[in-house]
Structures are given as C-alpha cells and as structure tokens.
C-alpha cells in the first residue's frame, strides 16, 4: 500500500524554527554605558545522544565549571492534526518544471498538521534574559511567516 518516501519535512521545519533564533546577541555595558562584552547566544536542538553530548561537550573527564550561560535550546514536542486547514483531498496543485517548461508536476493537497515547538532559555543574569526575549517577541505579531522549501521535487 505504501511506498517509501522521505522528504525531511519535519527535519526542515525544525531547522527553520532554529534558524529564527540562531543570531541573538547579548551586549553588556560597562558603568559608563559603553559595550564591553558582546557575544552570540549559543543555541542547539535539545534532544541528543548521551554519549555524543558527553564526548563533544565535555571531552575531559574533569570539567572546571558547570555549564556556561546563557544558552538556548529548542525542541519539537508535539504534533496535532488541524482540521480547520483541511481541504478536499482530490484537489491538486500543479508545478511547472523550471528546466523543461513543457511538463508539469502534479501533487495532491498536503495533510495539515501543526508542529509544536518549545524554546527554552537559560541565563545567569536577568538582564541577559530580558535582552533575549526582547529580540524575539517583536517578530511574532502573533505569527511570523517564512517560506521554506519543504519538498524540493515539487517546489513546495
């Protein structure tokens, strides 16, 4: 009944979500108001293999400090069917091939699911947290739209 296919749709959505937050900066001022420390907030996908985390994040057995802060991590936590976006499954869309304008690709309507993500932020200072949150929230009013090439073969 089913044939094998894998377009990395979930993976690409996870990457797209992560890319929203991968360039957040923190700047710390000195007493006269001049920036004297700026850095990019480290971000990573939360779930990982235990042994890989140990080998890459703590290659030496004895680590002198606890984890360094601030950090952000994100995680794909839920998947729910969204009937409100469902259209009839016999409807099709067509996509002309760029290389050969004489043929087209045809696809059936996708099935609507909502992916739920969680972004976690851990900072040592209140000020760091406020800087991070303030750089994120204005972009979501309440949604932020981005175009992602999820299925390359049909340009979807």
């Amino acid at each position, binding site marked *: 009944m089913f044939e094998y296919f894998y377009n990395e749709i979930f993976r690409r959505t996870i*990457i797209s979500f992560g*890319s929203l937050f*991968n360039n957040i900066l923190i700047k710390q001022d000195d007493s006269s108001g001049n920036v004297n420390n700026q850095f*990019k907030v480290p971000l990573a996908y939360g779930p990982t293999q235990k042994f890989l985390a140990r080998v890459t994040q703590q290659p030496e057995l004895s680590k002198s400090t*606890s984890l360094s802060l601030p950090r952000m991590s994100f995680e794909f936590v839920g998947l729910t069917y969204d009937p409100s976006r469902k259209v009839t499954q016999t409807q099709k869309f067509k996509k002309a091939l760029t290389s050969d304008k004489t043929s087209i690709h045809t696809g059936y309507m996708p099935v609507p699911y909502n992916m739920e993500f969680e972004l976690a932020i851990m900072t*040592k200072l209140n000020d760091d947290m406020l800087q991070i949150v303030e750089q994120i929230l204005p972009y979501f009013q309440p949604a932020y739209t981005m175009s992602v090439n999820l299925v390359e073969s049909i340009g979807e």
Partner: protein
Amino acid sequence: MALNPFFLQGSPSEQNLIQDLINEQLRMYGVEVHYMPRKFITENTVIREVIESNFDEAHPIEAYLENFEGYGDQTTILSKFGIQSTQEISLTISKERFEAYLTPLMEGKDNIKISNRPKEGDLIYFPLGDRLFEIKFVEHEKPFYQLQKGYVYTLKCELFRYENEVIDTDVAEIDDAIQRTLGSSDSELLGGDAMTTTLKLVGVGTTALATVGYVSDGGIRMISVTNRGGGYTYNPDVKISIAPVGGTTGVATAERISGIVACELNANPVAESIQKVFLTNPGAGYTEAPAVRFAGDGVGAAATSIIGDGVIGIVTITGGGSGYTTATAPAVTFSGSATVSAAATVRVSSAGTISHIYITNAGLGYTEAPTITIAAPNQTGVGTFQKNEIVRGSSSGTTARVLNWVANGGSLEIYRADGDFVVGEQIVGAASSASYKLASASFPETGFMANEEIEGEADAIIDFTERNPFGMP
C-alpha cells in the same frame, strides 16, 4: 553579674589554644585551595545584579574538605541545555588565618566588597579536581560558640557557572581552568566554556602563482556589457558564439550587481543586474567578434565582444598562495611586449587563497605568452599573543581579550569583544605587541553551540526568493 565569677567561661588564652590547634590540624590534614575574591566591575541598578565580575587574584589557603565520599550522587546530568555538572563541596577554613592572612591582601582594594570574612559569590579553586567553585553560603556558627567563640568558617560551594568572566590570576592552573575551544591546532576542538570568536589571522603568507597561455590568432579581447538587464537571481551563463572550425570557443562568466533600483525587474530584492563579464578562456580562431548572450532567469542584459591577434590564453593557477584577504585583493600584472597590456582581477577565497583569476582584458599584440605576476600577500604578522591580554583592531578600535592563540594556522580565540572586528585590519596585542592582519572571524562550533550549523542548513531550505516584492508588512 549573672555568671559565676570564679569560673572562666572561655578565657582568651583558652580560645587561642583551640584556634591554634585547629590551625595546626587544618595545615596537616587540609588541602591547599585558592581563594579568589570577586571584583564587582559593573552593577545593574533596579534589577539588582552584578553584570560584570573579574577574578584576577588567587590566594592560597589551607582548607579541610568535608566531602570525604566525593561530590555526591549524580553530579553530571544531561538536560536540554546540554551537559551540566552540579558538584558541591563543603570546606572548612580557619577564621584566624583568613583574618590575619587573606584580609590584608584584599582590604581597601577597588571593587572588592567585604574583605574581613569569606563571602558568597567569591570563588574557590579546588586543585584536586581542577574545579572552580562558587561560595553559596558561609556558615560561621558551627561549632556553636565553644568557649564563647567561633574558630572556623564552613564554605558551602557549588560548581561555578561561567559567563565570560575574566579569570586572570597569573596562576597558570587556574587561568587554564576555563576551557578553550581550539586545541593545539585547528583540527583539535575542545568543549569550550566561553562565548568566543575565532579570528583567522594572516601574517606569514605565500604568494600565489599562475601561468598564462597564448593565442596568436582571433582571440576574444574583452566582453563589454552594453545593457545590464535585470531580474537575475543567480549569475547567468554566458553563451559565446562557437568559433570557426579549427578554433576554440571562448568561455566567460558573469557577475551581478545589486542596487540598480531604476529597473523594475529588480523589485524582488534578490534580483540583480549584470555587472561585468570576465573571460576565463579567450578562445581562438575567431574571424569576427562573436555574439554574447546570457542564459538565466533575468531579461534584458546584452554584451558585445571584440577580438584581436596576439592575446593571452587561459590563466591557470598553479599555486593559490595563502594569507590573502578579500578586502585587499592582490594586483595582477602581465609582463611582456604588447600593443595593449592584458589585465585580470582575482577572487580570494575565505581560506585566504586565490580561487579565481578572471581576465578583464586579454591584451593585444603579444608575440609570446607574457609572464603573470600576482602581488604578494601582506606579510606583517609578528609576535605571540598572551593569554588574557587585550587586543585592539587598528581601524575598528574594537577590543577583546585573548583566550587562546594557536600559532599553527593563525587562529586567535578571543572573548569579551566590545564590537565587531573588520576584515583586513591589524589586530594588535596590548601587552605582547603581537600584530597580525585579520582574514576572517567566525564563531567556533563546538560543545553545545550549533548556531552556524543551523544557519548553514537553513540557508539551503529557506526560500528568500518568495519574499513580498512590495516589502514586508
């Protein structure tokens, strides 16, 4: 008088005896730790917190380790924030020793608050585990007033959570406790504690080498863009008319330019116009100037060519050299007898080598292949950067601290930068006077951080061509 006057409830001589016995025991059975007072550099008002602290002093003192069975169970955990160590220790130090020995070393110094007792927020370097602990609580009433006095402090400590604090004590083992990201070479990557930037510095470069061919009859001298066109979202292919039988068809490549706003075709911000057409092979055997067309997703671009005899042929890079920067691409010169000298331009890769040599003018009237010379890279790098010294960018004025200098490969790991460095500027060490030119800056991808990896993957799938041409709402 409430107490019996015929008994001494803790005379100074008895108290001193106990203190001396405790001091002696601590020096026999203790561990030599380093006490590192926190210096309050910048404090936030209203939201009360110290946003910048320095630890540039470390004083040895004997301490009795109360954790005789280790730090405790499950002291390393894996959370969504990566590996987290949660070791805790309790240390007992002598009250008298602290007041007589450490207090004089700290009191009256700038930015040190309270020097007459150990205080929360200061650090303890524990040499046996090579760990930095932060004092979370100081217990001063255990044992409880034996002979009416306290003799020891018990320091409850937790492993330090690091956030780019300066740890510069001049005690090598402590300063090295903050783990670097780069090992002894570029290929060795460590876990890394600090939020660092890696600056690729050049100073000792090698000059690139190339050879050039020769075309005696009917080579393309140059291609001139007569209409820039518009709407190109990628560099179009340049199609040149096929050379007559026995000749060689020329090959060229086009580059785009942004910011041609007059053209409606470029309403989409990623669409651009044609800037220049470079020859990579002037071809041979043409009897008339070949036509030039562009094959791409834009429209309107047009170009013409001219041909001539005795032009240069294909330029082949035989050695890409090293130490070049994109900001100061080297000049290319052709030496040889000619009516019109050939000219070329180079492209520098992010690794600092010459990746392409494009012919802008193939010359005219050469009788043999000229010699091509590429200018040497700027070789002005000297010295060795010192750990924790301040480096400054010569033109940007940006300063930062050195965490690690890997001479092999010219990688300088810096932290606490106050801005961005500019590629091409000189990076100068304040203490060492070492000076090198900046080729590129990047955030190292080790340990927990995966920002660049996510960025790289996202660039391949996020479709910026579908941006609203009328601007974002």
